[in-house]
């Protein structure tokens, strides 16, 4: 199955459980493909900034991310599913973010 087919199937799968009923058009499939490429390339370029900490670490993480992201493709339909208007999802990520931020600033600054 080609990458394009797997993306289209994933969109269909998500739309079946979504309230919105939208047809899968060429435009929506190519938009998701473009978003997918943008997401992967942005994350990989951002990971290159780890060279400021350690070059070996940067190489390992970039390679690991590349393999993981390609293996997990398509990511965007999953991301869209997670970032829907469900209040439960919103609250979950808000609380998670609060916990991470406090852990970072409270323990991270003092102990790292």
């Amino acid at each position, binding site marked *: 199955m080609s990458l394009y087919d797997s993306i289209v199937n994933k969109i269909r799968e998500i739309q079946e459980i979504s309230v919105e009923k939208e047809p899968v058009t060429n435009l929506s499939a190519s938009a998701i493909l473009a978003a997918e490429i943008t997401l992967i390339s942005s994350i990989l370029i951002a990971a290159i900034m780890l060279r400021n900490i350690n070059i070996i670490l940067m190489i390992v993480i970039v390679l690991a991310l590349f393999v993981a992201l390609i293996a997990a493709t398509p990511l965007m339909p999953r991301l869209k599913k997670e970032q829907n208007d469900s209040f439960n999802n919103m*609250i979950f990520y808000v609380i998670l973010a609060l916990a991470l931020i*406090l852990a970072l600033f409270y323990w991270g600054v003092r102990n790292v």
Partner: protein
Amino acid sequence: MNSLIPIMVILPITCALLLNLIHTKERAVKILAIIVGIALPIIPLLTSYGLHYFGGHAPLINNPVLAQGLPAFLTETVLNIYHPAITYIFSSAQQLFIFILGIMAFLVIFTSLNETKRASGVYAFLMFMGTAAVTAILLSDDIFNLYVFFEIAALSQVGIIIASNAERSYETALKYLFLASIAAPMLLLAVAFLLGVSGNVNITDIIYSINTGLVDPQNPVLLMACGLLFFGWLYGAGLPPFHTIKSAVYSKALPHGAALLQAFSVFTFVAIAIIILRIFSFIPLAKIFIIVISLLAMILGITMALMQTDFKRLIGYLAVGELGYIGIGLGLGTALGITAGLFQAVNEALITSLIFIGFGTIFYKTGISNINKLGGLMTENPRLSFIVILSGFAMAGIPPFNAFQSKLLLVQASITAGLPELGIIMVLLSIVTFMTFMKAFYTIYLRPKPSDLEINDKDIPKATVISMVVLLVLCLILGLFPQIATSFLEPFAQGLI
């Protein structure tokens, strides 16, 4: 005239209250709203830079006559320089931001009064109240006063969403309010912690306490306050994880309301980020966190925008993504980076408003925001569609528009700071932004018109066209002469580092 500093907040609040009282008298509502709307951008231009102490309570060091009769424990200690009253600071950056906010508030109110069948005093009340609150957030040097106006701004935004009467707008407003009930108390807790460790709510005094060792910079309560302040900032600006609700908020408001709401978010983002940089610049993690969260906002906002079929939601996500550019500039922490970030804030507020109002004309004519149900609208009004496509050029950073200058500065700042990767990501995401915009533009204006699409006969109000032209001209002026804005921002950025 420093006495004009509080007028920038008091005038829109007073106007809002009066509009609420006379909301049944349509003509009076229109006249009052237009007069005060015109005054909003003029007042910051007439006001001289300086400080305003509410109640006239200046620090003792500035008042030698009063200090003469006071005991030594007041005049010969740090209490001599502390600010006893709520203090507002008005400098070059505030002047530019409040001027731009004033212009936008005026244009949005002007547009809304002409687009709606019957002028609503209550709706205008909400817009003036929100404008006053965000102006106060930009001016205040008192973190508790900032919190109070932060809450007022949030409530005004909820009101603006509900007033739209759009489908499920009540639900979105309620969700936004629930999330506010988590984020706002956290911000208040941050204020309480800062007060607890420094004995002060004045930001300048808190910074003095930290810099002079009166407060231990590694105090865990102070670090906790930093984290909580960051959390409040994420909510106020609509950064991840609040980007989903923020884009929903924009999509449920009327297009002109959404234009003002995104301006509120942009200026709240800037105001709180500046406070974080002022107080917590000694924590390296603070700047890293700003960069990481900004990157996340850019990537999530712009990629999610690409997948939307509702053009209001699409612009909402693009607006969230564009916030990331501002954050990158501020997070770099250099004078060039901060100047570029602040310049980008001004540009984003203008361009996104133009896009909201521009695409709003489609909603006005069809009542539809789903791009799959639209098409062929270029023939309806070619001139307006030309302005809309120019707004897309502006957002993507195409010369000669303003965002080109600010994005170029941002790329230069990232290269100078030794992080060219950020520059590459910003260029990449600008291309995707343009692609996203063109996808919406093509489906709405260029492809064949669907047979079942109904377009009403109402003409686009002249006020809407005037607002779009004014915003486009401002984008063009700032693109051709960026020094008009940067000359206001550079001294401020120099003072921050």
